[in-house]
């Protein structure tokens, strides 16, 4: 009965969404306040209903209720409790329900915190959110119902995909979906603006925090996914330009562009039309990603089961929303008034430059991802567009962007002084080259390009700090005053600096690991040693073990440096009994930002085992940099400017907040 109640709640959520799709927009059109307010309560109700149905599915997984087909297909009575929880979204149906839950959550957020939004804008935004929710609820109920039942119930489940039996599954999908779906709010704002034919000043102020929140979550989700693939797949790689990775990377690139263009729009009311288009494109790319991953067009660990009807259904959703949005844009965009003007060399100009490069990069990735698919569909011939293509094109595009990153915040709005900014960045350039040179000297043997790459990374970091230093007047005024000014800087300035620094740190990680990584593939017998990154790795032998639902063979390794034992590590191969599927559990040890990565291969007839040992210098910088970016996003989110825009109510608060700040 509980299961069926969850199912009914989902059905009712669809009915509520459908009402929410129509009533508020009629209200906004007629200026009817009560109709518009239905949007608010309906959004809350939808969220409540979807939450109930998600909770019920979780309950089914926890109690191993194999009369639910979804549980039978993706769970096992013996798997550890945490995988019973995360297994809820470790499958197609459950992950789509999570998608829907997060969508409803965002609608509810707009409904509850949007009291300072213009009424009609809020009503239209909630209606557009409801269109998306209705489409996806219908998709769930008709093609991938998580509450489909099995009678009689099987006695045991088919187990969760072993690759997914990892803590990563608990974190990666929810974060990624928070990002993907977060951009739906920006999309709804864009559509609402197009419907009204007018963009309020509050629009950009509202879109920016949503973009920022979605971008922060997406950054965290992608970064987490990358680290997960790195340690779970056992290939030692951290980014493969795999279509599924690209599917999440494209909204990130477009979202980054949106983040910057929304800034121009908020401050200068310029780039209005462009920002609206970017908001549409970003969510469209999220939808495209969902289509690529969920339709079975691509085969990967993300695809779960493939079913052609699902692909067609998502394609229909895709065509409706992207096609509809772009047509609406074509008809209505001319009604939006263009805003302030600016000189090419200015903060706006720098941000336009950023947007140009980021959208070109998005287009490059899109081409590289879709071209093989389209070619295969049309001619049947299979080609693969691999890392060389992406490294070449994407790398070249990023070069000028990275050079320009520190300039942006230093340029003034409207018209800036490029030469002046360049002079102020001299220190950063110098430090960058110096440190790049030192690293090259210490790690000598790497290619000369690596030095420039590292120097570029350091330059981006120093450039970001330069902005903070200049703004607080360091060097010009006394230390105490500079410190006070530093403290008084808007949070968004810190956010910018942190995120840009993160970019530099990630850059250093990528260049460092690419240039200085070493890989050894050796056949080892117990007692044999091999060298990696200045450490000696000794293979001690194998051990058999049993987990709750798997058996494993682990190799034990002792790591020594100059004859002194530093650490020991285990690297194992597991065989999951229910699915008869093997996985690798690589042994990883960190030394500073460097890592030693040991992965077991096949056992040899003579008692030896093939071992792959990587020494990965600077590798942790890659994800360390994303942590900086995430921190930057969060700091920016707490900026008080992002919370303004209300008549009446905000005034009182402002008085309280502002006085002590001066």
């Amino acid at each position, binding site marked *: *009965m509980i299961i*069926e*109640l969850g*199912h*009914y709640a989902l*059905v*009712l959520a669809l009915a*509520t969404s*459908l*009402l929410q799709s*129509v*009533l508020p927009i*009629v*209200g906004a059109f*007629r*200026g*009817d*306040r*009560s*109709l518009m307010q*239905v949007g608010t309560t*309906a959004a*809350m*109700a939808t969220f409540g*209903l979807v939450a109930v149905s998600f909770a019920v599915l979780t309950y089914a997984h926890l*109690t*191993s*209720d*194999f*009369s639910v087909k979804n549980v039978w297909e993706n769970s096992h*009575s013996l798997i550890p409790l945490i995988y019973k929880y995360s297994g809820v979204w470790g499958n197609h149906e459950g992950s789509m329900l999570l998608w829907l839950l997060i969508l409803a959550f965002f609608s509810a957020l707009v409904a509850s915190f949007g009291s300072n939004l*213009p009424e*009609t804008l809020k009503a239209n935004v909630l209606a557009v959110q409801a269109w998306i929710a209705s489409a996806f609820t219908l998709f769930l*109920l008709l093609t991938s*119902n998580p*509450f489909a*039942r099995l*009678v009689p*119930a099987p*006695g045991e489940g088919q187990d969760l995909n072993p690759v997914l039996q990892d803590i990563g599954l608990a974190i990666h999908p929810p974060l990624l979906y928070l990002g993907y779906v977060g951009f739906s709010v920006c999309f709804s704002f864009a559509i609402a603006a197009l419907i009204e034919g007018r963009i*309020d*000043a*509050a629009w950009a*102020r509202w879109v920016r925090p949503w973009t920022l929140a979605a971008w922060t979550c997406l950054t965290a989700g992608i970064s987490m996914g990358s680290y997960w693939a790195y340690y779970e797949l056992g290939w030692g790689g951290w980014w493969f330009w795999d279509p599924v990775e690209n599917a999440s990377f494209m909204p990130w690139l477009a979202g980054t562009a949106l983040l910057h263009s929304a800034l121009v729009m908020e401050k200068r009311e310029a780039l209005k039309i462009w920002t609206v288009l970017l908001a549409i494109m970003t969510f469209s790319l999220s939808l495209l990603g969902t289509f690529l991953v969920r339709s079975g067009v691509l085969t990967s660990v993300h695809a779960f089961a493939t079913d052609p009807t699902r692909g067609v259904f998502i394609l229909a959703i895709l065509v409706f929303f992207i096609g509809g949005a772009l047509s609406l844009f074509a008809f209505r965009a001319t009604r939006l008034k263009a805003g*302030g003007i600016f000189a090419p060399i200015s903060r706006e100009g720098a941000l336009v430059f950023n947007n140009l490069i980021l959208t070109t990069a998005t287009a490059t990735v899109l081409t590289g991802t879709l071209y093989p698919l389209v070619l295969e569909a049309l001619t049947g011939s299979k080609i693969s567009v691999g890392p060389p293509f992406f490294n070449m094109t994407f790398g070249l595009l990023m070069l000028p962007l990275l050079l320009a990153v520190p300039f942006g915040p230093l340029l003034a*709005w*409207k018209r800036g002084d490029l030469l002046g900014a360049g002079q102020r960045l001299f220190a950063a350039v110098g430090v960058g080259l110096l440190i790049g040179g030192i690293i090259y000297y210490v790690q000598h043997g790497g290619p000369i390009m690596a030095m420039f790459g590292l120097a570029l990374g350091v330059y981006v970091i120093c450039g970001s700090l330069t902005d903070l230093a200049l*703004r607080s*007047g360091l060097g010009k005024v006394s230390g105490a005053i500079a410190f006070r*000014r530093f403290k008084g*800087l*808007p949070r968004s300035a810190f956010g910018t600096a942190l995120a840009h620094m993160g970019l530099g740190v990630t850059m250093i990680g990528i260049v460092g690991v690419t240039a200085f990584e070493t890989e050894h593939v050796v056949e080892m017998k117990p007692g044999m040693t091999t060298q990696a990154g200045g450490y000696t790795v000794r293979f001690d032998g194998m051990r058999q073990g049993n987990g709750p639902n798997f058996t494993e063979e682990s190799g034990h390794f002792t790591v020594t440096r100059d004859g002194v034992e530093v650490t020991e590590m285990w690297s194992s191969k597991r065989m999951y009994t229910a699915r008869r599927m093997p996985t690798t559990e690589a042994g990883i040890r960190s030394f500073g930002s460097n890592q030693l990565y040991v992965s077991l291969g096949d056992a040899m007839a003579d008692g030896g085992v093939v071992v792959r040992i990587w020494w990965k210098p600077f590798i942790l910088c890659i994800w360390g940099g994303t942590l900086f970016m995430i921190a930057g996003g969060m700091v920016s989110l707490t900026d008080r*400017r992002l919370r*303004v*825009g*209300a*008549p009446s109510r*905000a005034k009182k608060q*402002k008085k309280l907040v*502002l006085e002590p700040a001066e």
Partner: protein
Amino acid sequence: MLFWILVAILTAAVAVVLLLPLLRANARAEAPRSHDVEVYRDQLDELTRDEKAGLISGEDAEFARAEVARRLIAANDAVKASTGQVSSMRANRLAQLCVIILLPLLGLCLYLTTGSPDTPDAPLSARLANPDADPNILIAQAEQKLAQNPEDGAGWDVLAPIYYRTGRIEDAAVAFDRAVRLLGPTPARLGGYAESLIALSGGLVTTEAQTALQKSLILEPNDPRAEFYLALALKQEGKKDLALAAFDQLVARSPQDAPWLPLVNDHIASLKGEPTTTDSGTADTQAVEAAPGNPTSDDIAAAATMADGDRRAMIEGMVDSLSAKLAAEPANFEGWMRLVRSYAVLDQKDKAADALKQGLAAFPADSEQGKQLLALADELDLKPSGETP
């Protein structure tokens, strides 16, 4: 009943939430641009603050202030010009009706088409508390025990026929095989093993199945099931006379009312070239379903659990792998015979002819094996493409 009461309560609660704003007294909607005024005022405040903090120069601040002020004035004028509208009662009534009618209607219609209200929850702990009522739990428990102790022959012996009946043919073959190895051969185990193999290969009596059946006949000479399948194997190999004799012998030994007689008679008729009651193309697959020595209805149910498309896909997959194996090692006469026959059974004449040609390349037509291949082709009504015998 409780379920429907809860459904009603849930629906009513959502309806009330949606109706609340519609029941409130109508208020005048705010002027559309009043928010803009507020935002611009805030921007002016911010400018002043930035200037005081020394974040922007006085000149820049002046420029910016002028720009924001221009927007502020425009927004202010717009607010004064606009008048809020009052909502009409009629639209409200319509909306209320929408909520009251559509919500339960949509909800119930969709739920009744997609849901299964009569299926109770089945949490595992409750089922484990009362396993006797639930055969699947018994199977699962037996499997768990076997996973810990795979040398328990009795366990495999019990599970094997259950697997077969529930359509898990592959598991059944493994289980019968283990039972034979651990507990020794019996006609039941060997027969079950052979039957699983035959079902897996889509009705073809493979060499492995024949071996098992012959062993079973040694243990129990007059086992009708083994005799039937061996006769079928002869027929599938194209040895018409031998097959006919074997089927005739089976009829002679069977009781008058044996359930497998109609099927056997069909095969005899088809061997004599007479019209049969069943379509000859599917006779082989049906053989598994109505074979002697088995409660037929169970097997039909078992075979039915596998959709036709699935079964065909599985068979085709196996045939393809055989073809690939033969391409790598063509010196396998049995293999070529099986491949040609399989394609013929699957009704893929072109591929069968192709396989025949390749088989003849490995075993020339004038050799003993080549002659057998040609005899098979003759029986299956095939012509080796581009070659004359």
